């Protein structure tokens, strides 16, 4: 639909926080801000708003009222929602049809506020942080089928659709996923949904050693048993998991297998043999305990109420051990997800020296980091995201093509973007 040029609403532009409930209001707000070059902070349900650099915004665009399911077609495997729709509401609707968001969005609520807040779908797409199934089903960006949004000039744009196969024009779904609200305000989001597996079980291997754990994970992911999750928790985190079938409280490696009942049993059995495990070395969690275990992982619950700084490091699996060994300090706690390639690292103390060391090490090992939680004093001067100069230059150009006056979350990702 073409935009009406002079659409008028009863919005009061003197207020500092806008809470639009229609797209027309969003368009009007953005057009106004564009005209007057007023920077806007784009906000959803405040679950991840602390991630990113500090920046100055005169006004806030709060999308929490712009919510609701527009269209859900279980047999077509998609749900179309307004951007402010809570993840919990979407998951509730999907559950009724035995479906799910397969990318398992992280719930950062425990980390930042001590209680669940899985945020809104707009925020989840904007941050592109996927949970444990990442290596099997892809990231959030792989599940975004289409969107409608408002660019920095207040123009309504769209890309993609609701069908999985669509190669019509540039794939803007990808560039907007993980852009932290710096390019376009998402208004409507069509996201791929998938059936919930009939059952799932988790092979838990008692093992405190990271090197051995990475071997287990590597072997599991390269086997034909098709795992959908692989984590390692060192000794100090073992006690966080109190489950009936978990017979010890030390370090553990967990591998999740999902699918039809018979097949899951067969694969768990085969995997334990392929990994050469002896009976008292492992236990198997049933589907209820499996759900609890992986929810705790997805929710980063081992860091609940922690005062530490938290860094998310992604490297190729072959590099994980070296990265951990090089960064290992007395005050460091970590666990490994994504079958070995995602490290969640908590530092009690972080300063620019340690951070540049982390930056250097992740770069040498072909990876990158994102500062998720960081003490306020240090935040202003720290690089929250890594980038190289060439990509920075390209990012500047792309930013300009969507948001020429830099009014959306200016500086949230990088200075000048």
């Amino acid at each position, binding site marked *: 639909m073409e935009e009406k040029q002079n659409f008028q609403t009863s919005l009061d532009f003197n207020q500092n926080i806008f809470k639009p409930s229609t797209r027309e209001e969003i368009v009007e707000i953005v057009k106004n801000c564009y005209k007057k070059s007023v920077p806007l902070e784009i906000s959803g349900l405040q679950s991840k708003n602390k991630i990113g650099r500090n920046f100055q915004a005169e006004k806030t665009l709060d999308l929490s009222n712009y919510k609701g399911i527009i269209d859900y077609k279980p047999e077509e495997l998609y749900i179309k929602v307004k951007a402010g729709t809570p993840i919990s509401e979407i998951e509730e609707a999907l559950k009724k049809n035995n479906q799910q968001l397969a990318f398992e969005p992280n719930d950062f609520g425990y980390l930042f506020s001590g209680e669940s807040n899985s945020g809104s779908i707009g925020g989840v797409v904007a941050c592109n942080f996927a949970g444990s199934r990442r290596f099997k089903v892809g990231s959030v960006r792989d599940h975004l089928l289409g969107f409608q949004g408002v660019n920095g000039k207040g123009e309504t744009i769209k890309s993609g659709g609701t069908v999985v196969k669509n190669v019509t*024009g540039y794939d803007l779904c990808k560039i907007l996923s993980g852009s932290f609200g710096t390019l376009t305000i998402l208004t409507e989001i069509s996201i791929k949904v998938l059936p919930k597996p009939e059952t799932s079980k988790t092979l838990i291997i008692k093992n405190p050693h990271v090197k051995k754990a990475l071997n287990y994970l590597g072997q599991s992911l390269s086997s034909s048993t098709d795992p959908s999750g692989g984590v390692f928790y060192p000794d100090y985190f073992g006690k966080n998991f109190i489950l009936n079938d978990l017979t010890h409280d030390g370090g553990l490696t967990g591998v999740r297998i999902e699918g039809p009942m018979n097949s899951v049993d067969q694969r768990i059995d085969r995997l334990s043999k392929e990994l050469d495990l002896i009976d008292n070395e492992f236990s198997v969690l049933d589907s209820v305990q499996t759900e609890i275990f992986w929810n705790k992982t997805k929710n980063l619950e081992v860091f609940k109420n922690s005062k530490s700084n938290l860094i998310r490091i992604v490297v190729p699996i*072959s590099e994980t051990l070296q990265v951990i060994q090089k960064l290992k300090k007395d005050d460091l706690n970590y666990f490994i997800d994504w079958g070995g390639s995602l490290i969640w690292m908590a530092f009690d103390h972080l300063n620019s020296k340690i951070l540049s060391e982390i930056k250097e090490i992740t770069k040498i090992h072909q990876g990158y980091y994102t500062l998720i939680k960081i003490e306020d004093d240090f935040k202003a001067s720290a690089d929250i995201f890594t980038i190289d100069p060439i990509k920075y230059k390209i990012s500047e150009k792309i930013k300009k093509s969507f948001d020429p006056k830099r009014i959306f979350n200016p500086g949230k990702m990088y200075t000048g973007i």
Partner: protein
Amino acid sequence: MSSLQMPKVDSSILSKKDKIVSDIGRIINPKNVLSHPDELRPFETDGLTAYRQMPLVVVMPETVKEVSNILKYCNDNKVKVVPRGAGTGLSGGSLPLEDCVLMAMGKFNKILEIDYENRCVVTQPCVTNLAITHAVQDKGFYYAPDPSSQIACSIGGNVAENSGGVHSLKYGATTNNLLGIEVVLMDGTITKFGGKAMDSEGYDFLGLMTGSEGLLGVITEVTVKILKSPEIVKAALIGFPTIEDAGNCVAEIIAEGCIPAGMEIMDKALTKATNDYSKAGYPTDAEAMMIVEFDGTEHEVEAYIEKAKQIAEKNNSSSLKVSKSNEERLKFWAGRKAAFPACGVLAPDYMCMDGSIPRGKLAEVLREITRLSKKYDLPVANAFHAGDGNLHPLIMFDANDKNSLKKCEDFGADILKYCVKVGGALTGEHGVGIEKRELMCEAFNDKDIQQQLTIKVALDPNSLLNPGKVYPILRKCAEEGRVHVHGGKTKFPDIPRF
């Protein structure tokens, strides 16, 4: 060549041909610069053979540095560049322009690294899709996206077009199986997006480049993820008395939580044609025939096949056969994969369309295609990647009859417009290229297209890289050519198309 409008030819570039040839001959080995008409002829078209145009010059760089220097030279001298991989694309994405340098990437044909620990392969872009699987299959791995032309199409071309395949329902298209690329931008900048680690820092340029049809950069290296081959693969061949029954069966299989590796439907016309051609043992009396394939561990596949059987029976299936061996499974597919040549027997010419629709609209869209077939008085046969809603109608006509060709093109455009109308897309896997360029306004409004063009301008301000493709030059929804096959002879008759 039909009357498709391409960007205005720059006559000053044409007159400087000799200088351009000698200049580029100083950047790369002069033997890799082709300028004689006899040398240029093989590059005049790609898989969309209805359109032909000789380029000004063909260059065949051997290193990324050479690619960068050529692009920089062309950028500085305002020379248009059209990149080309294996030249198998079906939408005309690498159709040359009269005043262009055609950059043929054929010399980038080596696999650089096989990394089992990180389950990925780093390769040059002109390695074929199938060669990647061949390189890793002895260790039990494979590369999942399998466009029908995988024996010949290049992985770089797959990235440029975001190619799909029969198995993309379960395993995704190219974009979902990529880890990283090295790209050279029009100004000569060499950069890498992604790598061996999953996702990447900052904006997802890897995702933006994938499927950008050679308009944003030239791909010089590709890192793809490889998967462990499934332990077992089984297929069921199911006949249905009506298209509706088949469509309902697809929807229910999906709703039940079974995601097949592949799910194909053919209508009666195509079932009969392919069965006559390949003796695949298809139920020729059925109005619709489905091949549904599951892969995984033995118990898993058995469970899914059993569920699919029950759902098929509930939806009035008239026949049902489950493959008992891998040979039998491949026989099921043999007919489906012979869809193109089988149609070549039925009519002197046919055009293959490529639209995407919601699965649930299958019956409705096929009814509309039947209505249009009567309206235009041209026979049509339908193949359908039912799992992911990708429809390939094959319209039969006689190119010697000008009226017939025009009718065929109108018919094809009407089908694609209908796909968009029911909530689908203009193209599921062949790309827009020049073929569907003028139909873009069916799917997007001016602002949508303007936003995309702004991105293009940001990375290529003079619009020199593959201009005239994807985005309409004229503001009209004209009907252009499609994949046109005459006398059963495609450009590459030995490449499977399905």
